[in-house]
């Protein structure tokens, strides 16, 4: 078996790209509506707190944050190369470490709710 981290890195990127393609537009729409004065039940404190208190809600929120962060980190790494930044290893380490740190933080916050 080939010893490469590529399938894992790319698999998470693809999973994140798919999840963000399906849910990010509607999530942005919901928070934008809230910002414009129409706070839906889910985004009100009681609604979101109840949602995030349930293990299923926690899992969904964690999956969305983790996969979106990973997707963005990987694509940013590739894009920085395209923009002429040729020091791939430091870029990759910083990008993936940031995605990992954000995911751990998300887990900690969710477990506190």
């Amino acid at each position: 078996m080939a010893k490469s981290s590529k399938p894992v890195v790319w698999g998470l990127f693809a999973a994140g790209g798919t999840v963000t393609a399906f849910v990010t537009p509607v999530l942005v729409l919901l928070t934008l509506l809230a910002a414009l004065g129409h706070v839906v039940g889910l985004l009100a404190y009681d609604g979101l707190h109840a949602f995030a208190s349930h293990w299923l809600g926690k899992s969904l929120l964690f999956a969305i944050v983790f996969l979106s962060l990973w997707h963005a980190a990987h694509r940013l790494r590739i894009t920085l190369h395209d923009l002429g930044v040729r020091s791939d290893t430091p870029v990759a380490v910083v990008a993936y470490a940031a995605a990992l740190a954000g995911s751990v933080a998300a887990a900690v916050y969710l477990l506190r709710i």
Partner: protein
Amino acid sequence: MSRRPYVREVSKSRWFLGQPRYLRYMARELTCVFIGAYSVLLLVALKRLSEGREAYEAFLQALASPAGIVFQAVTLAFALYHTVTWFNVTPKAMPIQIGEAFVPGGVIIGAHYAGWAAVTVLVLVLAEAL
């Protein structure tokens, strides 16, 4: 090898400007900046939520600032561009073969758009009802 090889001068950081195809490619790649920034916004929302009602409601207030609204409007545009470009390459990224024949690309793309519409309506209805 020729003693004076022709080297076409291409900027490493601005090569995509002036070519619509390359510009669309770069716009697609740069959606990740907004997807990433919005994930950070979600992360902050979770932090504020874990800190209690006052912290969370202050967060909602911050979202409603002019900067918050502009950021979200631009993010919405890039998120939609990400969705469209992501779905449009699905037949290349995961071709589906049944027997000898491949499922036509249009069918795979169409199924994704149908799924997207269903997810969007479902989330809107559930979020409103909760």
